[in-house]
């Protein structure tokens, strides 16, 4: 048994260094998404909603899965982004979609930064309750500001000009919306993927696993958490803006507990802290609820509930966790070490 000649040839070191490499299977979700466009032109409304949810779940994964910030109020940022893009367009201030996304990211990020500065002093249940409160406050503000936000009835028929001046958003066959959301999702995903494998991302995982130790090694824990929370909020804001633009509509539901809880369920269902958990969870949850409710309009929640119970009982790490366990059981080794 010969010792490795230098430190970076040690299997552990190679595994660490190779973690961020793009694996062949990572192309599959994107191929599937493009195939979906051609195979199911009449399901693109559902597809668009699905992609927006994936992006929203990814933003939550960054905060919850990687940095361990337990939040039940992530819809606050989704809604902030949705209302930013929606109100700018509705009041004819600024309606170009892509710059609308940037504005939404800035506003949602600012909300994340402002609330993060206060909230992230706390942890655990206190943090959970405070994130919930932030969302409730924003929701009530949107309700009271009905003159600008449309209140409970929402802002109807937001006029979004054609993308790049060429591709018009069709409300009945949302092809352009689908590709637009897919493109933005890809860009955001590449960003998040790069981020979580960067030293910054590694320090977030460190904070999640052992905050005291991170303090002890001199990492600026609170600053890192606030930065992470702000980035996560900005991405959630982009997801919200995409939702508002592709639906040509914003209402209070974008700030509701329903949305925040659903995305949390989706992430836990798929497997958090795994990047692709958002994809798997969103597809499983939304496809099941969409098609069950289509064929059993009154009883579809039963099927969905059973799935959640089964996952909660037998797969604590979500659907991706099942695959990981199986891999270990049949002894397939990870390719890198």
């Amino acid at each position, binding site marked *: 048994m010969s010792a490795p000649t230098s430190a970076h040839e040690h299997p552990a070191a190679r595994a660490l260094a190779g973690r961020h490499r793009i694996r062949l299977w990572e192309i599959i979700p994107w191929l599937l998404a493009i195939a979906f466009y051609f195979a199911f032109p*009449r*399901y693109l*409304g*559902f597809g668009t*909603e699905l992609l927006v949810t994936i992006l929203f779940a990814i933003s939550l994964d960054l905060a919850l899965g990687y940095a361990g910030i337990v939040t039940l109020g992530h819809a606050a940022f989704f809604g902030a982004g949705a209302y930013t893009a929606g109100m700018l367009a509705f009041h004819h201030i600024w309606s170009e979609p892509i710059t609308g996304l940037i504005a939404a990211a800035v506003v949602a990020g600012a909300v994340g930064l402002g609330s993060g500065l206060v909230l992230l002093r706390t942890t655990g249940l206190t943090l959970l309750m405070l994130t919930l409160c932030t969302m409730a406050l924003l929701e009530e503000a949107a*309700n009271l500001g009905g003159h600008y936000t449309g*209140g*409970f*009835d*929402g802002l*109807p*028929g937001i006029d979004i000009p054609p993308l790049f001046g060429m591709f018009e958003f*069709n*409300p*009945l*066959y*949302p092809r352009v919306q689908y590709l637009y959301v897919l493109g933005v999702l890809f860009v955001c995903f590449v960003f998040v993927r790069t981020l979580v494998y960067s030293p910054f991302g590694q320090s977030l995982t460190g904070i999640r696993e052992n905050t005291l130790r991170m303090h002890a090694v001199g990492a600026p824990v609170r600053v890192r958490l606030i930065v992470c929370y702000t980035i996560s909020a900005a991405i959630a804001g982009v997801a919200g803006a995409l*939702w508002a633009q592709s*639906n*040509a*509509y914003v*209402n209070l*539901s*974008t700030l*509701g507990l*329903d*949305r925040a809880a659903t995305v949390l369920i989706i992430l836990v269902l798929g497997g958090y802290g795994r990047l692709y958990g958002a994809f798997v969870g969103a597809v499983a949850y939304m496809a099941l609820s*969409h098609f069950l*409710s*289509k064929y059993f*309009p*009154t009883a*579809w*929640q039963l099927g969905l509930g059973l799935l959640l119970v089964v996952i909660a009982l037998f797969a604590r790490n979500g659907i991706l966790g099942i695959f990981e366990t199986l891999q270990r059981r049949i002894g397939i080794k990870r390719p890198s070490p």
Partner: protein
Amino acid sequence: MKRLIAASAAVVILANWAHAQEVKVGVSLPYTGVAAEIAQQMDRGLELYLKLNADKIKPYKITLIKRDTKDPAGANAKLALQELLTQDNADIVTGWVYSPNAIAIAPIVTAGKKLAIIMNAGTAHITNLSPYYVRVSFSMWHAGFAMGEAAAKILKAKTAAVGYTDFPPGKDSLNAFKRGFEANGGKVIDEIPMGGAGAVPDFTPFFQRVKDQKPDVFFVFIPSGDHAAAVAKTYGALNMRQANIRLIGPGDVTVDNKLQDMGAAAVGIITMHHYNADLDNPENKRFVAAWKKEYGADTTPDFTSVGAYDGMAAIVHVVQTLKGKIVTDKAIDALKGWKFSSPRGPIMIDPVTRDIVMNEYLSEVATGPDGKLHQKVIGTIVNVKDPCKELKIGPCASN
């Protein structure tokens, strides 16, 4: 060869004939969630019309495709409608309980170019949002405005306090009542938002505040459902009747399928509405009897059921008039000015606004000889058009 041509021609003709026979109707209702009970009342209403009028529909066939709109978020209602139009090729679409959903889907209705019959959603200006909308249910202004007029003229009230659930139908109802009441010499002395629609609040502080101000009438708007019983109980517990404050409201306060839960405190509540199950007309007697036979003696239809029942009547009228071949523009023309003997009395679709014209009934809750609570009509206003559009108020003006 000749035989083959003849056979294929026959197949084509048969296929066309079959196509003309079947009319696909997409129904979007919140079959799950907080409004699931309303959806059930409505689903029963529309199924009952089809059952009672099976011979009217022949030789055509109406196929219902039901979809769950789940919540008021808009997105699910949009998806359901998109798929009804593009996958199922629905000829007519109908349903919608929540106003936000009816507002959210308006661009799709316009793009889809199919007749869309609103069976419930009551925010006044919805029918202005798409030229394909026809509403058979009501506008919040129908009952609110009429109640305001009646409170001043018939109940001779000088002052009123208003308590409302703080969401758009509540605000709509408040504005409508205030407009009608103050135009006839009354004065609204207090407006109290009483929490959101999601949960039933403790009404005591709101009602106590009203009691301290001693108005002649207390106008309450709450969503039809579980709020109603709590309103009646609080009103009774605070002895407000003994303080000579009359509880009034639109019919949501005394909705039929919750009336028996309200207890003795409900006696004397005065409401304005277009329907209650005790209405004395032959159509309604037939309707209520058929309902109880079909769904059980302890069930009762309410105004949401009648909205769906009349919606289905409108669809059957369109199918008959167009002989099963639905062309949207002709369908809308067929409904403009359409008259029908509904369980709520005579109704008509206003040819200008595509909204409903109907009677409003002033009713008082009383204990009947059977010991149960009933609603007794004490006044009728005939052929009421949506006052919001008549008076061109706010978004109702943009037609």
